[in-house]
């Protein structure tokens, strides 16, 4: 219980999956889903720009907050 409470406070930020449309080259991102991996070809999601259903995972990482100068 104690760990769960602390875990929520320290919960790691989930990574984002960055996709590139194979048709129009548009980049977009969404939260990481299980079984995603870099260079995986995804055929069941639509490109937000051209509607193509073929996209490639180009990166997966945890975004960092930009530090103010």
């Amino acid at each position, binding site marked *: 219980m*104690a*760990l769960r409470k602390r*875990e929520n406070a*320290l919960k*790691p930020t*989930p*990574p984002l999956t960055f996709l590139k449309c194979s048709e129009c080259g548009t980049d977009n991102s969404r939260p*990481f889903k*299980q*079984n*995603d*991996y*870099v*260079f*995986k070809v995804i055929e069941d999601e639509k490109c937000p720009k051209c509607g193509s259903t073929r996209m490639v*995972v180009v*990166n*997966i*990482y*945890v*975004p*960092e907050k930009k530090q103010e100068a």
Partner: protein
Amino acid sequence: MIIALVWLFMIMIFFIYPTFGQRMQLSYMLRDLEKKLNRLKLIRDDIRQRTIDTIKNIGKPEQDPTPEIDRLNEFFLIPPESMDPYGIVYKLEHILETHESVFEEDVRKIAPHAEEHQVKTLTNLVEISRGINTLYRIVRHFYLLGKKTSNIYLVLQIQMIMPQLMEIAEAYRQASIAFSEGQPIGDGVGVLVAAKLVNGNEKRRYEIAKDTIVQEIEIESRRVLVVRAMGPGGNVGRPGEGVKRLVEQEKDNLKLIVTIDAGLKLEGEESGKIVEGIGVAIGGPGIDKYKIEEIAKQHGIPLYAFVIFESIGEAITPMKESIAKAADSVLQKVRKLLLEKVEEGGTAIVAGIGNTVGIGV
């Protein structure tokens, strides 16, 4: 009256503190250690439960895998005798390879429905569970021994390194989340560079050693042989053996060997900072490093290395933006180096080192 009481109090402190001061200090230290040990136990139990749940979800075993996971959590490896160091690298290699295949086979048995790459990732997850279990047992050993013998110096030593140990334990917890979901980790940045270098330009691919592949590409009339572990399962492959076999195969055509790996940063340094130098950038027990150094020396091939800095925690937790973006910068540096150091028609080896979890081919 009050002055007399103050004097009495001062005299008591004067006699009591030297006699009981160390005991009081010891009891404070033991209480602090006990709190941290309890937290360590909670982290250990949490990772163990996550491992069991993941194996049940992915591997769909017919029987409860808990007793088998508890057995693997205590599984050990005895390093070879070093009294006579002759041939120790190959003895160590033999023991590590046997250990790896036995461990993997056991995980495969308790997760019969897992695909091959998932077995690799599950093996890593069980290794994390075993790692935190070992850490907990060692800390508990020193706590109990210190308590039993009332040895303040024994307790002091473990208490002094507890902040670092707790940081490692927290990193283990986050690593267990990453491996249970198959997310790329910081240690995989070397492989990520190799994957990006090859992306879309692969001419030929073949397995050179267990779980290790070679991808052949061409960069402005230079032949580049990219060595890396097979992904997207959690796997480090055998880059040392892979490079050794490639050099034996290519002989004197090779002009350069480049290794790319994640390296531990010093406090105060930025994560994702790229440094370059000479030598073989490979961590671990040293077998891969030894093999590459040995074969490069035999054939007189220069060794060049790129290291991407990160903390121990970042190396085993989901990859951060600064580290992932460093991969793109390293990629440019590697291309520039190849063009500078390898003449047209020449061949070079680029080895991307690290864990391939979440990084495909």
